[in-house]
């Protein structure tokens, strides 16, 4: 039973990581790419790390996983905000569908 739960966590995490990467490749400009990478990417790696914590089932490991996930969820909005602020000046000229994809 535990194995099946771990496997489902891993598959979901890999699926979300793949969705995030496809979004980073296919979406038209920086802000939408950032939206894909920060949300779906963090969700995917968090799910995979939770799977690892269930697999090992030790207190230190779980604490480390919780620290990693908290840190990811705390810092990725800050990083995205900084990239967005840095790039928004260049985006005002061509926010329409990008021609040089």
């Amino acid at each position, binding site marked *: 039973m535990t194995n099946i739960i771990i496997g489902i966590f891993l598959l979901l995490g890999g699926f979300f990581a793949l969705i995030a*990467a496809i979004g980073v490749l296919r979406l038209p400009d*920086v802000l939408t790419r950032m939206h894909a990478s920060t949300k779906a990417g963090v969700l995917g790696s968090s799910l995979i790390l939770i799977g690892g914590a269930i697999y090992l089932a030790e207190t230190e490991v779980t604490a480390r996983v919780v620290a990693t996930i908290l840190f990811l969820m705390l810092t990725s909005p800050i990083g995205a905000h*900084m990239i967005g602020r840095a790039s928004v000046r*260049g985006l005002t000229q061509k926010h329409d569908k990008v021609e040089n994809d």
Partner: protein
Amino acid sequence: MTSAAFLDLSIYASFIMVMLSLAIAFIRLAKGPTLADRVVALDMMTVTIIAVCGVVVVGTGEAALLDVALVLALVGFLATVALARFAERRDARQEESADD
């Protein structure tokens, strides 16, 4: 199918998916028209490598890779912030020199 076989299969499948997403993010890193695109792709790759660490933890039972994941989360944030500040200041400097 037994549950152990399902776990093995899902480890392989998620490893393939995560590696594929790493390769796709690298394509955006190589192509990305602006510096901000490249920073976003690099950030995405860091998060994906954290996911690779998680998959390898389940595959081998080696708990030390979780430390790698934690340190990578810390360092990746610093790299993103440093590159974003660099891009912002570079744009400001270019505008300043265009005004002169």
